[in-house]
């Protein structure tokens, strides 16, 4: 294609301007425009965060000043100290960390283990079983949330952390994501290990797991972030204040003290901060995970 193109160019090029410098100029103007557009649009997308952070450092009365003060007249860093006394933030954070870590660990473990069965071991009924996994990903959670609740109620697990752990530790999505990745690992590797006398469990632990670090990382990050940010699950299952997660705590703080605008923004910043740190550490895997699986 590149071979045939050059002879056509001078004939068809409609631009009357000299091809050399004029064209480069046009390209750089376009680049400049693209930059400008990107900067303006990204700034617009980031404005809510900027406003959140700025408001978290103000007095309540200053949050809604007219015109908007983007930089606080005085930085009230003490907001970040006071909020711990206003709500049991430490309890909420501890609960969120506990749930997110436990669920992530279980999901990565059982998900990657099951994915090996689906990707690397042949047995009758395997594909039908996998289809059942896929099918439930497509069913909206709301469609089976009531029976789930009834099961949990009968088991006496409503208002316990265990209910949320059980509900989210065995996700079909995790199995799906890991299987997709395992399929890209050549079968010859496990075949060779089998001939060398390694058991299937040994192949999983010593060959496939080490090779699938990027997929494990992206599943772990996605699961952690989703669990940390989950609102509906804890909202339905946890009624006891001591068990609440940061999301429930923040929501109730908003409901109870809806005029303490600065404090509410302080809480919001604190609820987003851990995610920002994790995201910046693992953003490569996030993008990879989404681009390869395409699913949430």
């Amino acid at each position, binding site marked *: 294609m*590149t071979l045939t193109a050059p002879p056509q160019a001078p004939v*068809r090029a409609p631009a009357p301007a000299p091809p050399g410098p004029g064209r480069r100029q046009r390209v750089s103007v376009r680049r400049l425009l693209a*930059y400008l557009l*990107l900067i303006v*649009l990204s700034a617009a997308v*980031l*404005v*809510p965060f900027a*406003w*959140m952070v700025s408001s978290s450092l103000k007095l309540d009365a200053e*949050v*809604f*000043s007219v*015109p*908007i003060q983007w930089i606080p007249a005085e930085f009230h860093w003490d907001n970040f100290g006071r909020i711990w006394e206003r709500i049991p933030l430490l309890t909420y954070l501890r609960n969120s960390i506990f749930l997110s870590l436990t669920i992530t660990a279980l999901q990565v473990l059982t998900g990657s283990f*099951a994915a090996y*069965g*689906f990707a690397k*071991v*042949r*047995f009758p009924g395997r594909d039908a079983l996998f289809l*059942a996994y896929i099918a*439930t990903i*497509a*069913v*909206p959670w*709301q*469609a*089976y*949330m*009531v*029976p*789930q*609740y*009834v*099961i949990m109620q009968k088991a006496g697990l409503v208002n316990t952390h265990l209910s949320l752990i059980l509900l989210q*530790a*065995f996700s*079909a999505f995790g*199995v799906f994501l890991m299987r997709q990745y395992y399929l890209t690992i050549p079968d010859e590797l496990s075949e060779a290990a089998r001939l060398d006398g390694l058991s*299937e469990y040994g192949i999983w632990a010593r060959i496939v797991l080490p090779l699938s670090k990027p997929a494990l990382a992206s599943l772990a990050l996605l699961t952690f*972030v989703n669990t940390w*940010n989950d*609102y509906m699950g804890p*909202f339905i299952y946890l009624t006891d204040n001591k068990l609440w997660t*940061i999301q429930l705590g*923040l929501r109730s703080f908003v409901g109870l003290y809806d005029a303490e*605008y600065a404090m*509410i*923004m302080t809480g*919001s910043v604190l609820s*987003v901060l851990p*995610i*920002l740190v994790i*995201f910046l550490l693992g953003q490569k895997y*996030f*993008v990879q995970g*989404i*681009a390869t699986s*395409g699913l949430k």
Partner: protein
Amino acid sequence: MTATLPAPARPRRGRSSTWVGWSFILPNFVGFAALTLVPVIASLALSFLDWDSYSSPRWVGLENFDRMIHNETFWTALKNTTYYAVGHVPLTLCAALGFAVLLNQRLRAVQFFRTALFFPYITSLVAVAVVWNMLLSPEVGPVNQFLRAIGIDSPPGWTTSTTWAMPAVILASVWRDLGYYMILYLAGLQTIPAELYEAAQVDGASGWQRFRHITVPSLRPTTFFVLIMLTISSFKVFDLVQVMTEGGPGRSTLVLSQVIFREGITQGRFGYSSAVSMALFVIVLTITVVQFRWQRRSER
């Protein structure tokens, strides 16, 4: 490879691999079956029962569905959910595609912009809802201050107004979701061969023509996938509405999943709420199937 394997090894491995295969899947399957597969099937059964948390279940056939289609709240919620989807799907799709095309160029700091635009997607919905509620506050909120500054004398009341509450929810949801779909589009854009653009440029195609005749057709599989994912997630919307407006003011932003939640979890009317679940499921399924059909016809 199979030819080099010793013949007797095959049947023995074939027999034992059933057990081995199941042993890998079992730890996950037990949890998955008990808490996902069984509830999915049970939901269908529950919709034919009259059952609250106290009495014993009673078979009522289609009574729940009959009640549902004569219930005004159901239709309001269905209308609102559709309104949300019709706003959220095209806006998010266009925003995601636009940003992806901009970011697919060879520019400096692309990585920074990508990170910045993706970040709203992973921030908690509660924080998102709280911040947007404040930004959209009618009298003193920054958004309305801005609108007044550019000459709009009576800007909308957003979440306090029955007309503007849904657009407010849609605005916040588009802002949140565009980064995720942008990544999907970026992955799609990377598969388009650069030669296509070079050839078009040589033929004198303008930027818009190249976008229209190369980018859009090449991205068709991605667009199809994005469309399906967006539609399904739109019909399931819950968290954002629950925290931003709780379905109000009045019933102006009440959506189907809130009806399921209120009837099932709050009121304990398991049968009726499962019937609404089934309706939601059938709606999502129908739309998905129609989209698949439409996709296949346009491919031919």
